[in-house]
Each structure stands twice: as C-alpha cells, then as structure tokens.
C-alpha cells in the first residue's frame, strides 16, 4: 500500500449505489438476523441457537460488504510549514533601563537576540520565521539589524494590534503557528488596562501560542503628569478647575508643588506629598480666567533628581476662554429717550447681561418723603468698584461726574481709564452732561476717549446730517450694509439729528478714528465728530456725540417702509466691536488641532476678510509661532484662496506652548496690518513617556492566555517555543485499491449460507 510515493491511506466505498440504498440494504440484513433470532426462540439448546445465529449474522455482514464495494484509497500528501512571528518592541519606553542603573531595555532586547538568534533560527525547521518590529504599527525587520539593536522611537505600544496584524497577514495564506514577543509590556493601547475579557477573546482567535520575553524588571523613579482633565472651553471670570493626575513612583514623602501656567504666568498652584506606595494623585487647580481668547496652559510638576523621564513632568493643553454673556454697565445721568431706547435694545439682546443705573432725582428735586419712593442711593462704590471689574463694557449716557464729587466720583475716573487700558471697553454718549458739557476735558477719562474733549465748546442745536468718513465706510461699527456705497446710502436715508456735543478729532497716531462726522458743524475748521472709536492700550472706546441716536431707530421707523434696523445694527456692531467679538476681526486663525505630538507640524487655517467683509481672495497672510519667551520660532507665508482661507503648516521646534499670530493686509491703506492670534500646544511627552514602568505581568498573562511560554530578562533564557500543529494539506495523487473483489469474501458468504442451510436441515428446521 505504501508504494508509488503514497504516504497516507483511508477507507472508501466504491459502490455505485446511493447511500440511502445502502442504508436500506443494511436494514434488510438486520431484519434477516432478527428473523433468524425470532425463529430460534423455541430452541432449548443454546449451542445450536448461537451457531445458527452466528452463521446468519456472518452471511448478512458478508452480503453487505460485497454490496458496499469497499476499497483502500491511497493518498500522496504533504505537510505545510506555518509561520512563526518574532516581534521586537521599538516603542520609546524601550529607552528606559531594564532595572535602575542597568542598560536600556532596547539594548537588553538586542543582547537577547544576539544570544538566542541561532536557537530561534533553528525553529525555522518547523515554521517559517518572520521578523518584525512593533510599536504603533508593525514593520518587517532584518534579524541582523535587530540583533544590533533597533532605535526605540515609536510613540505608542499596541501589542494586540501587532499580534492581530501578524496573525492575519501573509500573502501565502499560511497560518500563524506562534509568536515570540520581546517587549517591556508597557502597552498603552488595547491592553493599557490589562488583559480584559475582550482582549483575551481576541488573543484566542489567533489560535497560536504567544511566547513572551519580558524586558525590564523594576519601575524607575519617576514623577509624571499623567492626565489633565479639563473642558475645551471656559467662561471668562468664572472659576474653572483643572484636574491633574500625577503618577509617582520611587518617592518617600517628598512634597511636590504643581503649578498651572498660562503662557508663562502662574495662575494656580497646589502642593502634594508623594507618599511611598501611593502611585496616583489627583490635584485640583482652580483659577478664574480674566480675558477671553485661546491660550495654552501648562501643568508643571517639579523635576526630582534621578527621575527616569524629565519630559513627562509637564503637560500642556489649549483652552478657549469665552464670555457667557457680554456684561454691560449702562449709567445714565437722567431718564431720556436716548437712554430708553438704548436700554430697550440691550435688554432685548440675549447675549447681553445689562446692569443699569439711572439718576432719577437730583439734589434740587423735591419728590416727597424718601420712604414713599423706590429710589436707592447712588451706589458709586458698587458700580465703579465691583461692577466695573466684571463688566465687559461701560456706557456713560449723558452722565456728568461733577454732581457726584461728594460720592467720591473723582477718584473713580482714573479707575475707569485704567480699566479701559487693561482691556475694558468704554462708550460715552452725548447730552448736556457729556464730553465738554460734562467737564470731562482734562479728566483722566479724557485720556482714553476717542475725541478731544474741550470744555466750553458747547453744543450745536441746529439739525445736521452726519456723513461717513472714508474710515467709517469700512469700519464694522458704521458699516450698516454690505458695501461702502450701500452703507453711505443707508446713512444718508436716516433722519437728521437735532443735537451735537462739539468735540475735536484726535490727531493721527492716537489710535482714534472718526467714523461719522457732521459737515455742517465745523469745529476749528473741521467737521465735528459724531461717532469716533479708539484703540487705547488693550481696550477700546467709543464716542457718540449726540443724545439722539434713537432717531436712527424710532424716528426712522415712522415713515412707511421705514424700520429701526439702522439703530439696532449700529449699536449691536458698536457693542461687538467694543468687546472684541471675534466675528468682527477681519482676520481669524485657527489651528487644525489644539495640541500636536513632538516633531509634528501645526496645520493652520487663516480666514482673511477684505474691507467689504467679503473673502479676501489672494490676500497675502503670514503666520508666526511665538514661544513663551516672546521669540518667534517659526514663520510662514501663504495667499488666501477664493474663499478667503489660506492654509499653512509650521513646525514648532519642540515641546511647549506657542502663540499663533496671523497677520493679514491692513483694512485700509495706512492702517496697521490686521492681526489675530490663537494658541497651540506641543505635547511634552506622549503616552510612552507618561509611565516608565515595565509590565512583565501583562506579558505573562498574554503568554498564559494563548498557551505560550514566558521568560523575563535580564536573567531568563529562551524557553521552549510552543507552536500550533501544522495543518496537513493534500497536494498530490490518490489511488483506489478495491478490496471487495477478492474471492475469499464470496467464498465466505457462500460457506456461511451453505453451513446454515446444512445445520438447519440436520437439526430439523425445515
């Protein structure tokens, strides 16, 4: 049977009968035996009964055998060699020492490979060897290079994905017989939380034993900011808590001061004591951001001597600080229609939180007993002390300061000036208690107003039609309609105004711009300003030198087809400009991601708008990365596309916090270039550096779950590597050798039938 190159055999039926017919025949054979047994029930001698039954059974079996036509099938088969994957960890955690003071884990792994490469290659008899490195991904590797030592630079360790990739991947379709993993086990992907049931099931699906060689024994001394829990955005002036999780190993009661910095400036700090045996600490850091914008914050833990990784002691994140609602403080010197309509507008705006204070009675007024009035004393301290600090904008509507000298008002004027310079917003609206009439000339407030206030210039009481200046045509505050011509027309259609406080435009270079002027009211030869704005320090101011801006609303709405939109639009624009609403800046910059890994470039989108607030197609824009020390570390240039968006990519030099400053063309010739800023963080450490501890126990669990062997460096050698049984695959010929056609079987059938017949005759069973 073994000749002709055949190396296996099996039994087969050659009968042309279908299976069901063979089944029926088998039943018939059984029935024949049963009939014989039934006929022999009366036979008192057991010897005779047994002999007759045996002969009948033999006949039935022989008849069946002949009908089934059995044969021996001779096969030529071959065994297929499956694959053995050898995976060497090249993640960054392999740079850490095997044990404190020892060589790096990568060196230990290379030394192990040098020592056992021959033994591993000997396994090539049983399986095809495949050499790989793995970290975030799997890559084929040269065994000689691995033995020399591979550079550990992968930013993540994902063992399960690596095993799945080698399990699935082979062009030949050959199965994985086993794997040898040489790693520190510091997985920070699917196995970060240990061998979960899902991970265990995934390992079992490999159907291959994983032999693990654990590199690294003791965790080095290290303090890391492992995680920072914080929202993507926070509300300005509202307390925010950042939760930093520290991971500490190898400490014994040392205090550690953790600080939270905003671009170099410490905004919160806390101290924790690092106890022996306790590894995780959650440190809450609370602060109230005081300005809106996008900033990089950094949680910094101190660096102790002897730490394995220094880079993981800080962690940066980007936080967008927004305002919940714009807080406006409206102070009016007397009830008036101007105050009435402005209050109505601000009260209606869901984005405005309005604090009003109106003077309803002066010292001269005789109103009757105080307790019959709803009046409250002028809360100067509360308004200009507490409320000022938390206000986004302050509006003086026909409010004079002199009558309130006895309340200490004089002392608050420099405060308001400083509030503006520090980033606040202030607007003065005209009336006979405003500007020069309110004797603001020479006061600290005059230093920040957008017009020159000269006491005694008086008020113009003849009707006048204001006109946009060239700056006013393009400015977001006075832009009432889409284009410049439309804005001009919109202003010209408004009713003339009855009253103007005479002021003078500030000289160029003061940061002030007159947007709307009264050509019919000259002051020293030039039209008097009606609306003027100014950038002063970090803040902004607005002057509306009339008490009749309500004419643009209520009065404009009188004629048929008229409406109050100009008034609403003007004040809404003014308020948004005053508080630096981001949608009112002609250039905006946003990084693709708030934080990038070290070595990764920062993608930037820069949206540029033209003077008409449409997309500035083709506009040249530049972007810079500015470090915490104020130095420019990267710079790029691009032109905006048809949609006004320019795309740029800048490479930060290293970990840390960077301010992104985008510069676009000036809104008007001679004006300063438009700028916008954002922030981006380059992570000081990836997940690989966050925890320097090896996890041999995880590798042992993986080996046990798959039926593989386990060893630990530096002491362990190469264990026996279990491999899954290779599949046997038929590749060659087969040959059927019939056995039923041998004469002996037919003779046996004939003899048993004849024997039964003879015995039955002799023993009297006719």
């Amino acid at each position, binding site marked *: 049977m073994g000749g002709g190159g055949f190396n296996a055999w099996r039994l087969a039926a050659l009968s042309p009968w279908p299976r069901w017919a063979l089944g029926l025949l088998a039943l018939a054979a059984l029935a024949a035996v049963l009939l014989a047994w039934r006929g022999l029930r009366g036979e008192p001698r057991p010897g005779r009964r047994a002999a007759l039954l045996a002969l009948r059974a033999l006949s039935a079996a022989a008849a069946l055998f002949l009908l089934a036509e059995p044969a021996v099938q001779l096969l030529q088969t071959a065994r297929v060699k499956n694959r053995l994957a050898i995976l060497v960890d090249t993640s960054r955690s392999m740079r850490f020492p095997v044990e404190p003071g020892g060589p790096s884990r990568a060196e230990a792994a290379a030394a192990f490979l040098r020592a056992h490469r021959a033994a591993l290659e000997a396994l090539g008899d049983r399986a095809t060897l495949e050499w790989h490195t793995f970290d975030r991904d799997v890559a084929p590797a040269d065994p000689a290079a691995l033995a020399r030592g591979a550079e550990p630079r992968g930013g993540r360790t994902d063992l399960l994905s690596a095993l799945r990739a080698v399990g699935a991947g082979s062009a030949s379709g050959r199965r994985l017989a086993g794997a040898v993993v040489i790693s520190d086990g510091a997985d920070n992907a699917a196995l970060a939380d240990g061998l979960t049931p899902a991970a265990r099931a995934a390992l079992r699906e490999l159907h291959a034993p994983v032999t693990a060689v654990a590199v690294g024994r003791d965790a080095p001394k290290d303090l890391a900011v492992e995680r920072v829990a914080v929202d993507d955005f926070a509300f300005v002036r509202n307390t925010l808590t950042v939760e930093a999780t520290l991971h500490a190993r190898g400490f014994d009661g040392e205090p550690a001061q953790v600080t939270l910095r905003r671009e170099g400036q410490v905004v919160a700090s806390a101290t924790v004591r690092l106890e022996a045996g306790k590894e995780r600490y959650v440190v809450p850091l609370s602060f109230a951001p005081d300005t809106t914008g996008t900033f990089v914050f950094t949680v910094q833990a101190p660096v102790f001597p002897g730490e394995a990784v220094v880079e993981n002691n800080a962690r940066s994140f980007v936080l967008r600080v927004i305002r919940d609602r714009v807080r406006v403080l409206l102070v009016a010197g007397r009830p008036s229609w101007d105050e*009435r309509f402005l209050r109505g507008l601000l009260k209606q705006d869901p984005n405005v939180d309005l604090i009003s204070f109106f003077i*309803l*009675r002066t010292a001269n007024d005789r109103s009757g007993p105080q307790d*019959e009035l709803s009046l*409250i004393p002028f809360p100067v301290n509360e308004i200009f002390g507490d409320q000022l600090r938390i206000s986004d904008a302050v509006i003086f509507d026909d409010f004079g300061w002199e009558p309130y000298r006895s309340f200490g008002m004089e002392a608050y004027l420099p405060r308001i000036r400083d509030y503006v310079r520090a980033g606040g917003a202030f607007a003065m609206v005209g009336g006979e208690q405003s500007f020069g009439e309110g004797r603001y000339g020479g006061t600290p407030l005059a230093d920040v107003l957008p017009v020159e206030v000269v006491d005694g210039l008086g008020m113009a*009481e003849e009707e006048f039609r204001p006109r946009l200046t060239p700056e006013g045509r393009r400015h977001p505050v006075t832009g009432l309609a889409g284009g410049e011509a439309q804005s001009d027309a919109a202003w010209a259609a408004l009713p003339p105004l*009855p*009253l103007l406080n005479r002021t003078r435009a500030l000289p160029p270079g003061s940061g002030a711009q007159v947007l709307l002027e009264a050509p019919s009211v000259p002051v020293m030869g030039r039209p008097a300003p009606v609306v003027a704005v100014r950038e002063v320090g970090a803040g902004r101011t607005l002057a509306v030198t009339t008490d009749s801006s309500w004419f643009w609303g209520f009065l404009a709405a*009188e004629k048929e087809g008229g409406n109050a939109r100009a008034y609403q639009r003007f004040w809404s624009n003014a308020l948004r400009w005053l508080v630096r609403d981001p949608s009112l800046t002609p250039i905006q910059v946003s990084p693709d991601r708030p934080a990038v890994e070290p070595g990764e470039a920062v993608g930037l989108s820069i949206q540029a708008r033209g003077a008409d607030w449409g997309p500035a197609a083709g506009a040249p824009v530049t972007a810079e990365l500015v470090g915490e020390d104020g130095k420019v570390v990267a710079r790029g240039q691009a032109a905006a596309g048809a949609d006004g968006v320019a795309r740029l990519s800048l490479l930060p030099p290293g970990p840390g916090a960077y301010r992104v400053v985008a510069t676009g063309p000036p809104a008007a010739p001679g004006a300063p270039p438009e700028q916008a800023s954002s922030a981006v963080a380059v992570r000081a450490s990836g997940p690989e550096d966050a925890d320097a501890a090896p996890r041999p126990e995880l590798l042992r669990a993986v080996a046990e779950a798959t039926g593989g062997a386990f060893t630990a460096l530096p002491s362990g050698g190469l264990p026996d590597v279990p491999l899954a049984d290779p599949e046997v695959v038929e590749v060659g010929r087969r040959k059927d050798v019939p056995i039923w056609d041998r004469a002996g079987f037919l003779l046996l059938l004939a003899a048993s039938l004849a024997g039964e017949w003879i015995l039955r005759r002799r023993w009297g069973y006719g």
Partner: protein
Amino acid sequence: MRRRTFLRWASLGAGALALPRAARALPETSRLTIGQLQHGGRWNPRPTALRRLLWELAARTSIETAPDGVALRAGRPGLHRFPFLYLAGDGPLPPFTEPERVALRRHLQYGGFLLVDSADGSDGAGFDASARRELAALLPGSPVLRIAREHVLYKSFYLLDHQGGRVLVKPWLEGQVVDGRLAVVYSQNDLGGAWARGALGDWEYECTPGGEAQRETAFRLGVNAAMYALCTDYKDDAVHLPFILKRRS
C-alpha cells in the same frame, strides 16, 4: 390781601424758583414733551393739565421737561418725535381714520407709549366706550387688561398702592402690552382733572372722594407713568429689589 392776589404773587415766586433750572440750558429737543392726540371729539378737556404735570416732573425728578404738551394729529408726519402720547376726551369721540390707526399702531409697536385719560368719569358709555373701541382696533392682539398691583408701573419712582384722579371710577389702571412692555395705560379717573391748575395757581377741580391726597396720588401716577415710559422696567432690575422690599414692608 385778597386770596387771588396772594396766589398770583405766590405763582410768580414759584416761577422764580423754577428759573435756575431753565437756566441750565438743556436744549429744547432733549426735553421731555408729551404729544397730545387731537381727535374729532373734545380732545383737550383739561388744557392746563399737561403743563402742570410736566412742571411737577421737572420739580420732582431729574427728567427735564418742555413747558407744555404738544398737540398732534395721529396721521401727520412727526408723530415719532414724541414717543410719549396722551389721549384724553370728554364724551364720545368719532373713530380714528384707518391711516391714523396705522400710524398709532406703528408708533406703539416701535416703542412708543400712550396714556389714555377719561375726563368724563364714564364707565361703559361716553369716552370710555369710544376709548375701548379705539384701543381694541389699535392693538387687536393685546386685550385691555387690568394692570397688576405688583407691576413696575407702581414703583417706577413712587411706591404706589392707591389710585388718583379727579374721580375714582375704577380703583385700578388698565393697559395693553406689546413685546412684554406696557404700551398703553388707561385711566378712567380723570388724571388730567386732578392735574389741571389755573394760571393763578388754583386747582381747577376738586378731587373726590379723596381730596388733596387723591390729587397727590394722581401726580405720582403721572410721574410714574413718565418714568415707566422713559426707563421701562428699570425698577425691576435686581439692584433695586432689596431697597424696595424694605420700604414696602
């Protein structure tokens, strides 16, 4: 000295007291003026009433006022120069024309304020019937409803819990609300009759049944109405609450 002569001198004195205020040179256009609506009926039953109310407003509050009201026709241009309108009458008035109604409606919807004052003490007839007809036509979506005692109108300057006027037909005021604000306030108690004061300084009408206290309340209501027109719900702002609660208790 006869009583009349004394009053003449006294009124001159009062004028002299008022002079320094006028000397503060607030431009005319910035002063509060009340536009009194002319109509086909007896539209000006108390010709001296608004002058006195404006005088009292200037004397009692920081509101600067014009010396007198201004007569207006609803359909003529310039209505919106006077956000505060006053509609009075003695006896029924013929309906406003449709253009007049449109103009008044527009005025109120864009933020105007209308004080309606019945001089004839009527209830269900006379001026009252006409006024209700006109108000229903003016703001069909806003029914004329009683103004709650807690409304800011009763604390916009004075803390009030009584009604004033020449008579007391109703112990409450009614009003119509537009966009959450009182656009129309209606009194049946002849406020103008209580405000009216002759050139010689004598009150033109007795106030019944409450006498001078009722007249004072009428002025206080007038002051509160003007304050409400100019400051709306300012006195509902949180900053005032503790003070008002303390005084009311």
